[in-house]
């Protein structure tokens, strides 16, 4: 087993990135391993770009150094590229393919880039895994489970130093009873999407 596991979670404020980071941290404690995580709160949450990091194992602080992430999990494609400084050639970048267009494009005259070019650049710097997390979430019963789909994808990507069912059990422990089925479906959907690549 590796001494340190560094995971970066990114996306847009309001997509459940912080919730996903929190659940992943709790799962690590359930797996009886050391963990530090860093989150963004406050102003950055109002639709802004969000980054959280989770470090597992023999680590003393929560921030991931540039070029040392084992995985970058992104709920939005350009947000995966925005934080590419944390990736090396070995890093697995798992991203949802559905853009969320920032308002700066509509009103500020900025441009949302061509996605093929975005994916091409990520590919040139890391290992890219694209999934349609939005569709999987919708098919599971609620689009707000997109973050759980991403955790499922992470669990299947052979990054975590513990078994996937610890993560799944932690998710189910942390959602209201009536939403458990939807969340399990979303998680397994995320896992399948990686295993079928």
């Amino acid at each position: 087993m590796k001494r340190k596991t560094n995971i970066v979670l990114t996306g847009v404020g309001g997509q459940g990135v912080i919730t996903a980071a929190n659940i992943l941290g709790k799962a690590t404690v359930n797996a009886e391993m050391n963990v530090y995580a860093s989150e963004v709160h406050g102003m950055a949450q109002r639709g802004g770009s969000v980054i959280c990091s989770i470090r597992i194992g023999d680590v003393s602080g929560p921030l991931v150094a540039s070029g040392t992430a084992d995985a970058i999990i992104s709920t939005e494609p350009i947000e995966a590229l925005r934080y590419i400084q944390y990736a090396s050639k070995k890093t697995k970048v798992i991203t949802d393919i559905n853009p969320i267009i920032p308002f700066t494009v509509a009103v500020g005259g900025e441009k949302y880039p061509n996605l093929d070019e975005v994916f091409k650049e990520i590919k040139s710097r890391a290992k890219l895994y694209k999934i349609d997390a939005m569709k999987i979430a919708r098919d599971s019963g609620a689009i707000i489970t997109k973050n759980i789909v991403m955790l499922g994808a992470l669990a299947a990507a052979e990054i975590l130093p513990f078994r996937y069912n610890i993560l799944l059990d932690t998710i189910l422990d942390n959602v209201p009873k009536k939403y458990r089925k939807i969340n399990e479906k979303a998680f397994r959907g995320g896992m399948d999407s990686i295993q079928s690549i």
Partner: protein
Amino acid sequence: MEIIEGKPGKTILLLGNEAITRGALEAGIDVATTYPGTPSSEIADTFSAIAKYLKKKGRKSNFHFEYSINEKVALEIAAAASFSGLRALTCMKHVGLNVASDALMTYLYVGCKGGHIIITADDPYCHSSQNEQDNRYFALFGGAPMLEPATPQEAKEMTRIGLRISEELKQPLLIRTTTRLNHARGPITLRKLEKTRGKGYFEKDPMLVTVPSTARVKHHDLLKKMERAEKISEKSRFNEIITIGKTSKIGIVTSGVSFNYVKEAVEDLKINAKILKLGMTNPLPRKMCEKLIKSCKEIIIVEELEPILENQLKVMAYDMNSSVKIFGKSTGHFSRLYEYNPYIVTDAISKIIGVKNPISKPTSYKIKLPSRPPALCPGCPHRATYFAVKKASPKNTVYPTDIGCYTLGKEPPLNVADLLLCMGSNAGIACGLSVSTDQKSISFMGDSTFFHSGIPPIIDAVHHNHDVVITILDNRTTAMTGHQPHPGTDFDGMGRPAKRIHVEDVVKGCGVEHIEVTNPSDIKETTLVFKRALEFKGPAIVVSKSPCILLENRAKRKTGKKIPTYEINQDKCKHCKTCIGQFGCPAFYYAEDESIHIDEYQCNGCGDCVQICPFDSISKKEEK
């Protein structure tokens, strides 16, 4: 609710802020007060959540917690608890301590009785703040013992032990955190909860009245206390020299979260070094520092923001006639700006020592990405108010703004934020502009900000008849920091029913003659309200009332009510761009063929856009 129910010895994952709350509970905290502010908010929110949880379970909280009206009042209430022999905690963001500083500076003379911890949550890089002031200066400025945690576990322990140190010294103690501690999660080992004291008793003492003759005595006492504090600092388990690798002539002095970066940097660089990890940073453990200075040829100081450790270490080295070389900000190896990260610290240390940095330099992406700054949420009622204001106001109108979500009105296309200093500054600035220019001013503040510090400038405006329009954006919550209650809500921080104070009643009591209350979701009427306010000669107040859409939708989801979404009829749309170019709700977007759509994932269903479309092309879609 593990944070209160978890058994001693158990390890749970907590946010740095939650760990502080747990530490206070483990020390039997009696009174906790705050005014919310990122990155400190979750300390208080955790007290609030615990109180509500216990209430729900039919159990009584054995502490008093409150979201006070502002930081100064929060500090005064907790200080009174301490004078009564109780243990107290006050938490706030760094700029909050500016508000509380009038009370603080003399409180540090008077000293406390029960242990009192004051938490200042600093925000290097201004993640959610208007400046990145280094509040360690307050400890030096006023004479407060200070602790700086590096990890959530340490934050818990420092809160617990800090309360004892404060009680022992009879001196309020500062715990200084930074965003990367407040919002870091880590494993916390629980200890048992100490009993609280119930009611205290205030013993009268003429030395508690700081007239000049008392103050002169108290200043002397303060210096004596800090001498005793230095002895505690020498023995504190929070200060230690950690040797990594073989004995070395290289020393590294660090505190707070920087220690984490230093430790991994030394490991990654595979160097030998002695790390002086400082947890109690005021007063510094002089003997421990001198021991390090004596045993080293080179000392590297790693601290974010101001060179506070660096300057003190240099003075010590000078007094010792030491030839040790001290590296830090003055040698240009470290910056006084922003926050550090593993790369910055590893790179600077590698350059000083002359070894290769194994961490790759952060390299940016080649494609140009659109920026994604925070914005007013889709459905935010402030957007409708701002849209109406823009319709009503003449060219060159100045919009002084304030601290809260509504600051985000700064972004295009609204552009309704021209000047911002601090909490409550909007109205004072508007008054100043009315005496200095012929331009119209319409200023904005939230309801929580109004209660915090927005009332005195309104009284100033009335007394001097300043010709201003002051807007209170009343969404019945302190939204930006996480929806805390305030005097305008009918419940308090412990979930108990509370007397609601109406903004319009207060301004009436201040003597304002022109007051209008409007619901911004009626955009046409709200525009007229602002027009009338502008026509009035003298101070006019507009209270724009509509609940935060996030709270409203949360309540809808809870009660099973549907949240609608809206769509654009493409046949009716004439592409005038009012929705995007003037209203600017982030749910609108251009498709590749330049047609305009509403993103169902983002739309919060307020329906305000239906009113602003001149061609009647927006209507309710199916329910989600």
